[in-house]
């Protein structure tokens, strides 16, 4: 293993080396579990990481990495991170590898999982050795070494967190995703983008007017939204990183964009498809457009409002809001058969549907007594499950790319803010606080790791 570690590497690129070959994991790959934080959180111990080089900077980097990893993993709601005061063993003293661990010291305090870490730190580089142990099986299940620039520390920790989640659930998590939302801090509604955990929020639009409904393209490279810079509700498609974009300005409304999932991923806007509500023909209907706004066809046909499309992950169906029954309810249209079915029957005001990326559920905002709450409904005819209760107005649910969490807005503290919770409704907490109010969050797909 040492010979691998000494191999020359490109310092600018994050490097990853598997420390221990994957011996039969405690949870075999075909036995991924669905973790329900409502029923049980996994007890996890993350003792302080060991500095593997001399000096204050290594100790600081080690402390910081352990703290960030605990924060990142606990963000998922899956874990109960055990209090350090209860730990009987300090791997900084006893060692961080399999041979050095006395598993009984961990099982006896209730830990089912243990993560140890070692951190090398030089002037401009950082290396981390991170391991996940199944304490009851008494073995190491993940071992990785990462190498990168000092400023890559956050990415390294998130990458390992992603490995842990993949090992447990078979899904890559959401540690490389972002959340777009609307904020009023500038005096106008503008779109901001933060990392999934609320870190580093940055203003994305500068329309200096009403800006609403951000929607991420499947590759996370484009955002579509409605804005009024020309004093009309037009759609804009703007690149996430470059100053490129398109305006979709039909007469009447141009609102509620939703990107269609792609069977064959393409980064060309001409190949991408967008569903949106347009009213140029005199009625508010959902249309299918190219990513540049060229109309391909009309998707709904019913007098009244048809708005807020959201696609099933296979792109074969979409849910939307229609007032065809007299008040807003969620409907599903099957593109193959052309059939439209009503999905929501409870309550008289159900809007903002958002289809889970796993495909089996849909989140929406349902109004009862003048207040919105977040509900999740399956497609098996069972009644919806209410996830927020008696906490002001809760709106705009949007699933994390792995379907394990939901971001939404809430007025539970007065001003509207962005909150997250697990898909089971547990662990509701505020994501960030900025000047003004925040609303309309949309979780991005996972960006590709390099």
């Amino acid at each position, binding site marked *: 293993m040492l010979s691998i570690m000494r191999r020359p590497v490109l310092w600018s690129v994050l490097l990853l080396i598997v420390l221990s070959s994957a011996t039969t994991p405690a949870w075999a790959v075909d036995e991924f579990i669905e973790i329900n934080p409502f029923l049980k959180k996994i007890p996890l111990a993350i003792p302080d990481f060991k500095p593997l080089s001399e000096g204050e900077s290594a100790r600081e980097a080690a402390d910081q990495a352990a703290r960030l990893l605990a924060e990142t993993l606990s963000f998922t709601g899956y874990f109960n991170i055990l209090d350090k005061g209860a730990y009987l063993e300090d791997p900084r003293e006893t060692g961080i590898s399999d041979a050095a661990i006395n598993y009984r010291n961990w099982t006896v305090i209730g830990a089912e999982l243990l993560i140890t870490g070692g951190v090398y730190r030089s002037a401009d580089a950082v290396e981390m050795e991170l391991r996940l142990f199944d304490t009851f099986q008494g073995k190491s299940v993940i071992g990785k070494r990462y190498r990168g620039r000092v400023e890559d520390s956050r990415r390294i920790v998130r990458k390992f967190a992603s490995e842990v989640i993949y090992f447990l659930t078979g899904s890559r998590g959401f540690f490389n995703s972002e959340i777009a939302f609307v904020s009023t801090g500038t005096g106008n*509604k503008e779109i901001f983008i933060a990392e999934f955990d609320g870190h580093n929020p940055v203003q994305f639009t500068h329309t200096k007017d*009403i800006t*609403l*409904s951000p929607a991420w393209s499947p590759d996370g490279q484009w955002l579509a939204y*409605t804005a009024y810079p020309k*004093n*009309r*509700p037009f759609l804009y498609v703007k690149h996430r990183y470059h100053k490129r974009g398109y305006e979709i300005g039909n007469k*009447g*409304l141009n*609102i*509620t964009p939703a990107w269609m999932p792609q069977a064959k991923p393409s980064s060309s806007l001409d190949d991408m498809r967008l569903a949106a*509500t347009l*009213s140029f023909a005199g009625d*508010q209907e959902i249309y299918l457009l190219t990513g540049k706004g060229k109309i391909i066809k009309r998707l709904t046909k019913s007098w*009244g*409002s048809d*708005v*807020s499309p959201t696609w099933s992950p296979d792109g074969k169906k979409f849910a939307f*809001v229609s*007032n065809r029954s007299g*008040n*807003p309810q969620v409907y599903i249209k099957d593109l193959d058969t052309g059939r439209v079915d009503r999905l929501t029957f409870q309550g008289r*005001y159900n*809007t*903002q549907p958002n289809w889970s990326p796993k495909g089996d559920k849909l989140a929406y*905002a349902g*109004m009862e007594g*003048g*207040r*919105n709450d977040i509900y999740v409904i399956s497609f098996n005819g069972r009644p919806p499950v209410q996830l927020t209760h008696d906490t002001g*107005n809760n*709106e*705009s649910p949007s699933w994390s790319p792995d379907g394990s969490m939901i971001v939404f807005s809430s007025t539970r503290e007065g001003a509207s803010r962005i909150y997250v919770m697990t898909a089971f409704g547990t662990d509701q907490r505020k994501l960030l606080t900025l000047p003004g109010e925040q*609303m*309309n969050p949309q979780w991005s797909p996972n960006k590709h790791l390099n």
Partner: protein
Amino acid sequence: MQKKLWLVLALVMLVPGLMLMTSCAQKSAVETDTTQKTTPPPEDTSQKTSEAELQAAEAMRAAEQARNQFVNEHIYFSFDSAELSPMAQETLKRKAAWLKANPDAMVIIAGNCDDRGTNEYNLALGERRAESARAYLVDLGISGSRLSTISYGEERPLDPRNNEEAWAKNRNDQFQLK
């Protein structure tokens, strides 16, 4: 109050020639306002004006008042509804009369909602509210080419508070002159 308004409207329609001077009327009205605030109205000038001039000034004031009323009088809606109440219909009839008397006026009807609903659906509802008023005015004989619509959904509340009174105020159509 209602009768007085009709009198004003009747007067406005009797002197259509003066309507071409609305912009002048607007300016003079503004000037009188400012002078009234700073100095007392100069009595000697009013004594010099002839009876005809007085009547013209009065008509202009009435026209200005009618115009202001057209712009400032909103119509209101029930929750999640774009239906025109009898009261809204009466208001629209007055607006149609003014539009007939002012054939050059071009109108933007802006539909608005209270913030209890959700933003996206309210954008659609606001447009339906604006379109309801537009359709009603067209039925009353106003050319559709003079009437455009825009929806602001719940984004431009008249009253930012969160109570029944504010919500009722915010569910409206507003009429702007281009």
